[in-house]
């Protein structure tokens, strides 16, 4: 069994070394879908942070009792419950954003990051580190989404959080609003990070 990570290491892993979007390339569907407006991105991030941390915590608390054969079933159930709670809460208290996000909140259930963390970490580790791991991973996801949204909203709409920031003569780049804009932004971001900040293991392999 690998050595247990310290809390700081967990965060370094989640935010940087093992960043779910940039390094593991997980959760791309929602990354592309909800990043055209910063406010949508923020709500989506909050939903994902809640789901990942709570699911990881719950799976970890139940890890000693859950029978091996039905663990995936149990995990899906736990994740789905938290996601539905998020979905209902957003519909009740933020109706406009709920409509803008459409099906994507519900689709957090199938977001690979959530089940990935339950399977890879929470089911073999105690509750507190699992909670931190979930937090770190979901924050890693959130940061990437924020960066992409901060590129897409100004270029696509000329605004940030609905406030106009571009000069009057600026023509919005329509492509930035649509999925291809997100593909280009994400692609450039991954390329930039891999090129200028290669992982230690990656470097070794290349030599």
């Amino acid at each position, binding site marked *: 069994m690998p050595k247990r990570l310290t809390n700081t290491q967990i965060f370094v892993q989640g935010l940087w070394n093992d960043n779910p979007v940039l390094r593991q390339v997980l959760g791309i569907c929602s990354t592309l879908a909800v990043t*055209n*407006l910063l406010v949508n991105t923020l709500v989506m991030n909050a939903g994902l942070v809640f789901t990942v941390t709570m699911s990881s915590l719950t799976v970890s608390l*139940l890890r000693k*009792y*859950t*029978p091996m*054969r*039905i663990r995936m*079933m*149990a995990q899906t*159930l*736990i994740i789905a*419950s938290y996601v*539905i*709670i998020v979905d*209902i*809460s957003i*519909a*009740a*208290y933020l*109706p406009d954003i709920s*409509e*803008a996000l*459409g099906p994507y909140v519900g689709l957090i259930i199938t977001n690979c990051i959530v089940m990935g963390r339950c399977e890879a970490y929470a089911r073999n580790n105690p509750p507190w580190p699992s909670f931190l791991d979930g937090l770190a991973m979901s924050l890693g996801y959130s940061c990437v989404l924020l960066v992409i949204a901060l590129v897409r909203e100004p270029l*696509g*709409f000329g605004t940030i959080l609905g406030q106009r920031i571009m000069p009057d003569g600026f023509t*919005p780049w*329509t492509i930035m*609003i*649509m999925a291809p804009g997100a593909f280009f932004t994400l692609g450039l971001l991954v390329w930039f990070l891999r090129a200028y900040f290669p992982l230690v293991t990656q470097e070794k392999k290349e030599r």
Partner: protein
Amino acid sequence: MKKRLFSILYMFLLTFFFTSIVSAVKIYSQAKIETNQRVKLQRIILDVLRMPVGEGISNRRVVELFDQRVRETEGKDRTLYVGYAEDGRAITGYAFPVGGPGFWGPIYGMVAVDPSGTEILGVAFYKHSETPGLGARITEDWFTKQFRGLPLRPEEAKKKIFYLKSAGTAQAGNELDAVTGATGTSRAVEAFLNKELAHFLKDIWPEVRKKG
């Protein structure tokens, strides 16, 4: 065998536990969600009937205004919302829901006509799946305001009630600006809204007139 029974029992209890929590949250929020949806619709109806509901108006005020000035009545195949003047007697317009296929998915909207049924008071679209920043701009004021005062009876029977032309080239009274960059959505709106308006005039309006 014992292991299997445990798995079944375990899953049963887990499901029971989580379903209870989710149901509790749902029941707790149900009323709030329904109010949100109702107020949203009422706001749209008041807006197309040209009653004062700006951004700053609170939900409570919307409900109050709606109760005072709008009565619901069943039309042939849809609910009609009849708008009354402040004295509660004179009718200021009729609003009715419209819907049809958009470019990416169905579009739902609300249209209001004046009491004589000769021109449009207001149009709003409130549910659609068009592209943000392109087709979704049909919900913006500049687009929907163009419909205000649009005559409902075309001079020639075969003509459509309105046409969407590329922005800046609209000239005649029945030509409106389309959304630039969203030709598909504009064509879809032109098609379904004309059809719905024609249907309203032909099948629903005579009945409304009879009722007086």
